């Protein structure tokens, strides 16, 4: 018997979904990120308006003063959809876990310098309440925002903040004990140095405009706080007592860099959309920049003493530089 082999090439009838092909301008293969993000936002057949907000539809682009022709323009340069996001975070977490294990196994926490330990506990442990506030805000942006391109990474950032709160808790437990967490909470609730920041966090909780919240939380507060906490303070502790705390805050340091890439890209596109947007974003930025700087001043002093003011100024200048590049008008 003779068998003839021949090659049959089967061309697929279509390369991607129609709505994706329309966006790409041709029927060509699209990345999973694009396929899992574009046009996912429900935009029709809502039936009833919510009783708690009858001025708006259930999902409504008018819940912010920012106006975009196409909300899907606010894409994430990291191209995070659920799969890519969880994989990227799993990798970061694996590295961070290995660092925690290293510190535990070698007993590095026990032998850590006591003055530096006190400083680290006083500064980092109350920050877990800030991270929890950021988690609430991420969820709010996702719930009331519009367009999957922007709401999706907002929720991811919110969940990351929950993880960051947990890492800060574990730092407290590793360098101290259960009592340190309670002391941190008392400091957050009572100590004068923390009240400015606590007020700021609580004020962001009641912001109605979700994009203003994005500017306040993800751009200004995260931008300045992460530079201060995981660069400036970390550097000083490292010089004073070695890199133990750097290892325990590794996730936060890496996450801050990663989130900045996304925030910068979103701000750049939103500001370039129209002069009105640019003005609005510049106004929000100037307002929250002032408040964050004021709220963080006593914390910077708590951690760095007289050098705190300079360190905070450098952290703010870094965000200024990023927003200058993104096209905002800085006052």
């Amino acid at each position: 018997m003779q068998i003839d082999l021949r090659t049959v090439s089967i061309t697929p009838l279509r390369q991607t979904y129609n709505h994706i092909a329309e966006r790409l301008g041709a029927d060509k293969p699209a990345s999973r990120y694009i396929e899992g993000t574009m046009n996912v936002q429900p935009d029709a057949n809502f039936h009833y308006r919510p009783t708690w907000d009858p001025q708006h539809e259930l999902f409504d682009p008018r819940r912010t003063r920012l106006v975009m022709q196409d909300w899907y323009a606010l894409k994430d340069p990291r191209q995070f959809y659920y799969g890519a996001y969880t994989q990227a975070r799993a990798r970061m977490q694996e590295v961070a876990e290995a660092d925690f294990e290293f510190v535990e196994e070698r007993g590095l926490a026990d032998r850590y310098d006591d003055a530096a330990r006190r400083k680290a506990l006083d500064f980092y442990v109350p920050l877990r309440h800030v991270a929890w506030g950021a988690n609430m805000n991420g969820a709010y942006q996702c719930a009331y925002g519009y367009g999957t391109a922007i709401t999706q990474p907002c929720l991811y950032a919110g969940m990351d903040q929950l993880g960051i709160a947990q890492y800060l808790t574990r730092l407290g437990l590793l360098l101290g004990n259960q009592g340190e967490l309670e002391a941190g909470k008392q400091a957050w609730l009572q100590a004068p140095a923390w009240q400015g920041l606590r007020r700021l966090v609580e004020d962001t909780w009641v912001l109605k405009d979700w994009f203003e919240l994005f500017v306040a939380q993800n751009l200004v507060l995260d931008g300045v706080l992460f530079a201060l906490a995981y660069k400036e303070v970390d550097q000083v502790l490292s010089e004073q007592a070695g890199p133990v705390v750097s290892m325990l805050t590794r996730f936060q340091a890496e996450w801050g860099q990663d989130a900045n890439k996304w925030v910068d890209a979103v701000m750049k596109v939103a500001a370039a959309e129209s002069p009105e947007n640019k003005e609005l974003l510049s106004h929000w930025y100037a307002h929250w920049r002032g408040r964050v700087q004021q709220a963080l001043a006593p914390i910077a002093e708590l951690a760095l003493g007289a050098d705190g003011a300079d360190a905070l100024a450098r952290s703010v200048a870094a965000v200024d530089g990023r927003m200058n590049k993104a096209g905002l008008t800085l006052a």
Partner: protein
Amino acid sequence: MSNVFIAFQKNEDSRAIVNAILADNPGAIVSDQPAMVKIDVPGHLVVRKSTIEEEIGRAFDLQEMQVHLITMSGNVDETDDEFTLTWHQ
């Protein structure tokens, strides 16, 4: 001038690599086959790390490309930032 070519398995990562090659090599001819993409360019083909990183949205080590590589022809010149195929004549 004869062609140089490079072929990749079709998957999520190689889509970004192929898009980057198409962006960097205006003369490129793509042949989309089941499970494989082959790219021919007359004389000279360059793969740039920076373009791939823009496409893929994360840091990319050019050596990761080897995982998806099926075959290629041409003389290879490889640095951390660029991978080029040419014919030395």
